[in-house]
């Protein structure tokens, strides 16, 4: 396609402009802002794609500003080597006219021919909108300010695709292909989510759930059925068992057997009773025999005891006789010893009296001396106490000032003197030298001694006869000192009174006297202590005691000592000897007496024994006699013999009975009876159980009989089978839908790769000129430029600089135009201020790009910067 010329009249902002002889290659149209560059583009679009009779916003925008005129555009262009001239007017009296050598069309036929020539379809809308009809030219004819926005392919995608179809044949499938994909997607969406998972509402899933619930239900029913049948089975088996019992007459047989066993048992019980009777008889006879034996034994024992008692009595009588004789001898010995002792005692008493007399005299002398000593010490103590009396009285008579009192008195005295001295200095001294001493009197009228100077310490009034009154007022501190002096005097006087002393000296004297007295008292006290260490009371008691002792000794015959030998030692020896002889005599007596006593004791015991034995012997003899009289021993012996014989015969009977019983085997009989009884009970219980269970089972089964379980099972099985078939079909459908959609999408992707390839291969040489080592990446589905691939790193298109974006967009458009042109589509590129952000260096490169592209394409550059394209070597048109 080659735009040859363009002419506008009353078209939007342009009153009239005409451009002739545009080049088939590169053209530059320069115009300042608002000069109408963009209007040129609008006019071209309107001419080719806008129905001349259209109305609406887009068309109204073509009207000239503030004028009522009809916009007119005329384009000259070559297509497929045919030169065409197209003229259109809009709004009022719209017209269209297309002419070429040998042909001419006008009116709506023009629009149809244009759509045919440029392979686009008019929008069906009566009021077209911007971009409706742009088609591929929407991409190739770039309006001002949109060059950085990528391809903005959204609206134009289908157009591109449609346009590209010429190149890549019908590989893209066209509308039908896209519709088929949508339809396949819808089919797939029935079963799957967009992420390829099974959809929640997938019929497959629903069918599976249904089958699962049917299966569960079927399982439940089958279990019910099985339970029912098990019960039925049990009923059959119980009935069969019951029938076998009845057939065998098991109960009657068991009862008969039990009765037989009972009869047998009764018989055994009779034998047992006989045996027990015989044994009881035997036990009775044996008891009788034992009684006879016992009686005989006791009789023999009685006879022996009587004999033994006689013998014992005889022996003890002999012993008693012997002891009686011996007792007489011993009594004589005692009497003899007694006499000897009496003699010895008299001798000893004499010796003792002699000895006592000697000892009493020396005691009296010793007592006498002690009494004297005590009397003397008591007299001395009395004298000392007399001396102590006045001293102690003085001690307590008056208080004695102590050291502290003396010090206080001394301090008070010193102060008194001190103050008096200071007063004597401070007080004025009045010296009267009257003519008549008697003429001086004091305030009270008493005469004043005027011989000596008078010291005035206080306000004092003197009456001087013949003169009058004179008042002396001592100044300074004389008055204070006087008061202090008085106070000091009072203090001193008070101290004296407290210690009851006349003066300080008196106090000192009394202190010294007190000290002296205390020493004297201490000395006398010590002396008294030495004289009466135990105190006076104790000493006097001792004295009294000694005197009493003295008197006692005197009373005890102190006077009868004249005949006593003078030698106390001899007296003592004699006394000791006599005493010893007495002791020996006493001991001999004791021995004799003890022997006699012992012998007496023994004799009494033997005598008692003798008496007992005698009684025992006579008692036994009596008993034996009585027993023999009643039934003699021979008779008893005969009794025993008879009992023995009886026992033997009874024992034989018992043995016989035992044998009878053993022959009947009572143990076996009892066991048999028990077993038969149990068997009978067991059979009865079993029968009752069986009948009960049969009835119960019949009841249950009849109750459950109408539950239609079998029917339900058959129904569920049928439903499951049908559901299984449906599920299989649905699964197949699901897989088929996925397969179809997947195959279509895969094929479409492959196809796109196929035709994106040519675009990329066309872009590459241009791109290398401005951005070496760079590839452009397209989004497969949206066809948008995704970014640049630089050194293996993909850069997002939106993050490229404005300059880079517009460069990439422009070269991509050039490549697209290339593709379209080679596909036989009409294509021409118009760039309206498309490279405003490009730096100089790159602009130079873009010039190369444009020049290269212009070798096969017509490119019209609209710009407001003439100098940017001055060096391009293209014809420049100015608006």
């Amino acid at each position: 396609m080659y735009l040859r010329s363009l002419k506008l009249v009353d078209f939007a902002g342009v009153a009239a402009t005409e451009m002739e002889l545009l080049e088939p290659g590169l053209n530059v149209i320069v115009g300042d802002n608002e000069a109408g560059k963009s209007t040129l583009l609008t006019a071209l679009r309107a001419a080719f794609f806008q129905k001349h009779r259209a109305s609406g916003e887009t068309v109204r925008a073509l009207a000239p500003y503030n004028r009522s005129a009809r916009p007119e555009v005329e384009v000259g262009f070559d297509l497929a080597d045919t030169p065409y001239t197209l003229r259109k007017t809009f709004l009022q009296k719209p017209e269209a006219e297309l002419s070429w050598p040998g042909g001419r069309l006008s009116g709506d036929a023009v629009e149809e021919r244009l759509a045919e020539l440029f392979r686009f379809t008019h929008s069906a809308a009566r009021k077209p909108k911007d971009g409706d009809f742009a088609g591929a030219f929407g991409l190739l004819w770039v309006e001002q300010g949109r060059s950085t926005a990528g391809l903005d392919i959204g609206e134009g995608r289908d157009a591109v695709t449609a346009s590209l179809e010429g190149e890549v044949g019908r590989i893209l499938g066209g509308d039908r292909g896209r519709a088929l994909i949508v339809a396949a997607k819808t089919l797939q969406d029935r079963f799957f989510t967009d992420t390829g998972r099974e959809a929640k509402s997938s019929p497959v899933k629903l069918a599976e759930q249904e089958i699962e619930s049917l299966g569960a239900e079927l399982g439940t029913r089958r279990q019910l059925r099985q339970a029912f049948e098990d019960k039925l089975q049990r009923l059959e088996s119980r009935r069969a068992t019951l029938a076998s019992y009845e057939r065998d007459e098991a109960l009657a047989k068991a009862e008969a057997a039990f009765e037989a066993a009972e009869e047998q048992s009764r018989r055994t019980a009779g034998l047992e009773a006989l045996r027990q009777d015989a044994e009881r008889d035997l036990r009775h006879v044996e008891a009788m025999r034992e009684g006879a034996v016992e009686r005989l034994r006791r009789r023999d024992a009685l006879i022996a005891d009587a004999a033994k008692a006689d013998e014992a009595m005889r022996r003890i009588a002999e012993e008693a006789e012997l002891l009686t004789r011996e007792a007489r001898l011993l009594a004589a010995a005692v009497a003899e010893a007694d006499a000897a002792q009496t003699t010895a005692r008299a001798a000893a008493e004499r010796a003792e009296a002699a000895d006592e007399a000697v000892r009493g005299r020396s005691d009296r002398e010793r007592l006498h001396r002690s009494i004297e000593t005590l009397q003397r010490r008591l007299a001395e103590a009395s004298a000392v106490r007399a001396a102590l009396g006045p001293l102690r009285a003085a001690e307590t008579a008056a208080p004695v000032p102590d050291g502290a009192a003396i010090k206080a008195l001394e301090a008070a005295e010193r102060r008194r003197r001190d103050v008096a001295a200071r007063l004597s200095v401070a007080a004025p001294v009045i010296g009267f030298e009257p003519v008549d001493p008697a003429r001086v009197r004091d305030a009270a009228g008493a005469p004043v001694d005027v011989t000596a100077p008078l010291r005035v310490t206080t306000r004092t009034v003197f009456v001087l006869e013949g003169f009058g009154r004179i008042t002396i007022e001592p100044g300074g501190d004389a008055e204070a000192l006087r008061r202090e002096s008085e106070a000091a005097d009072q203090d001193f006087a008070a101290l004296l009174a407290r210690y009851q002393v006349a003066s300080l000296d008196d106090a000192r004297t009394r202190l010294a006297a007190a000290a002296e007295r205390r020493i004297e008292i201490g000395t006398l006290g010590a002396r008294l202590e030495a004289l009466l260490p135990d105190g006076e009371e104790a000493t006097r008691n001792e004295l009294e005691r000694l005197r009493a002792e003295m008197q006692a000794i005197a009373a005890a015959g102190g006077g009868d000592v004249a005949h006593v030998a003078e030698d106390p030692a001899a007296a003592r020896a004699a006394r000791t000897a006599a005493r010893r002889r007495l002791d020996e005599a006493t001991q001999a007596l004791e021995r004799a007496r003890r022997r006699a006593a012992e012998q007496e004791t023994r004799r009494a015991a033997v005598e008692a024994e003798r008496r007992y034995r005698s009684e025992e012997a006579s008692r036994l003899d009596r008993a034996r006699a009585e027993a023999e009289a009643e039934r003699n021993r021979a008779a008893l012996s005969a009794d025993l013999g008879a009992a023995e014989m009886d026992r033997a015969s009874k024992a034989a009977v018992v043995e016989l009975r035992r044998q009878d019983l053993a022959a009947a085997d009572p143990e076996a009989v009892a066991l048999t009876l028990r077993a038969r009884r149990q068997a009978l009970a067991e059979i009865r219980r079993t029968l009752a159980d069986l009948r009960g269970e049969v009835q119960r089972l019949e009841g249950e089964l009849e109750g459950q009989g109408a539950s239609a379980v079998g029917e339900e099972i058959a129904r569920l099985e049928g439903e499951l089978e049908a559901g299984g078939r449906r599920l299989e079909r649905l699964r197949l459908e699901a897989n088929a839908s996925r397969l179809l959609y997947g195959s279509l999408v895969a094929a479409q992707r492959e196809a796109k790769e196929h035709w994106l390839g040519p675009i990329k291969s066309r872009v590459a040489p241009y791109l290398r000129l401005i951005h070496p080592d760079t590839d452009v990446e397209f989004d497969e589905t949206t066809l948008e430029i995704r970014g640049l691939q630089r050194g293996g790193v993909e850069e997002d298109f939106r993050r490229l600089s404005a300059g880079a974006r517009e460069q990439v967009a422009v070269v991509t458009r050039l490549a697209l135009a290339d593709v379209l042109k080679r596909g036989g589509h009409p294509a021409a590129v118009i760039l309206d201020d498309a490279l405003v952000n490009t730096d100089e260096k790159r602009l130079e490169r873009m010039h190369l790009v444009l020049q290269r592209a212009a070798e096969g394409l017509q490119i019209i550059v609209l710009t407001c910067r003439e100098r940017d394209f001055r060096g391009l070597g293209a014809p420049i048109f100015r608006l």
Partner: protein
Amino acid sequence: MIRFLHTADWQIGKPFGGYEPDRRGELKAERFRAVERIAALAASRACDAVLVAGDAFDDNQITDRELNRTLDAMAGFQGPWILLPGNHDAALGVSVWTRLRQRATAAAAIRVADRPEPILLKDGEAAVLPAPLTRRHEGADLTAWFDGAQTPSAAIRIGLAHGSVANRLPEKAESGNPIADDRADRARLDYLALGDWHGFVEIAPRTFYSGTPEPDRYPANRPGHVALVEIDAPGAAPRVERVETGRFDWRRLELRVDGGIEAVGEALGGLPRPGDTLLDLVLAGSLSLRERVRLDEALAHWAARLFDLRVDERELFDAPDEEDLDRIDIGGFVRAAVETLRAKAADPADPERKAAALALRLAYAEHRRLGQEGA
């Protein structure tokens, strides 16, 4: 002379679970109506008895409602009815018969033949020898006792049994409950009334299966009849009339379609009563996608006309040809995708083979639909 109806296999309560609920209801209800028809027939032909040779009930645990409806349906014939327990309604310890007796005590005309002992009819003019099943499956021939059964000398001997006659039926039918094929001869029977086989057939001399009076399965073995039997005297040959009682026409149709579906239209168009027909259509062959889509449409049409239609197309294969594919798209990625799918569908080793075939068909159908919408 005695005249009686021989029927069997009513299968009352059969649930037909594989069918849509509304159809199930109709199929179940029809079985009561079949009994009504039998009662009416017995009454109108003045039968001396109706012999039901087992499986009157589909299950021992049918509901009381079904039991009552059965008795109601039987009311059209005053009796006697002689009902033999079969394998579906065996006379177990507690069974449907227990319940039936509780209800039918008043109606003395209903006799449950659950014991192997002769039942005399018409004052001893005939004796029925029943062989009731007391278990679902018997290994022994329960009719053996017929041989030595004592009956009045002037009585016509009629055997009544349920099971498979040995050596006469297809093998799969012989699942148990055997009956000797010479039983009628050996037991001097004038007629042996059998149940279990659902089609009407004289299986051995004087030995008949009446079949079910109302078909309930697809096999074409002449179901839907009862036998009307007349026997003049002991030893006389029975006159057996096959009387149709069925309503529903259960059919299995196996069709081969290769290249075109005309056979389907012809076969289905020939059905006498499509509204009462349950068709099990087995299709085999291969079809182009065009024909296949046509077939689906035709089957949808027939599914709406027939009482029930089930189609087995496991042996029916899609054979997309160039024309099919060109119709979808002659080029472009769609064609590429379609070719991929065709290759998959044609590869026997591909696990997704079936899915691929269906996918192709879907693509075809969708494309056609889009084309129709676009047109």
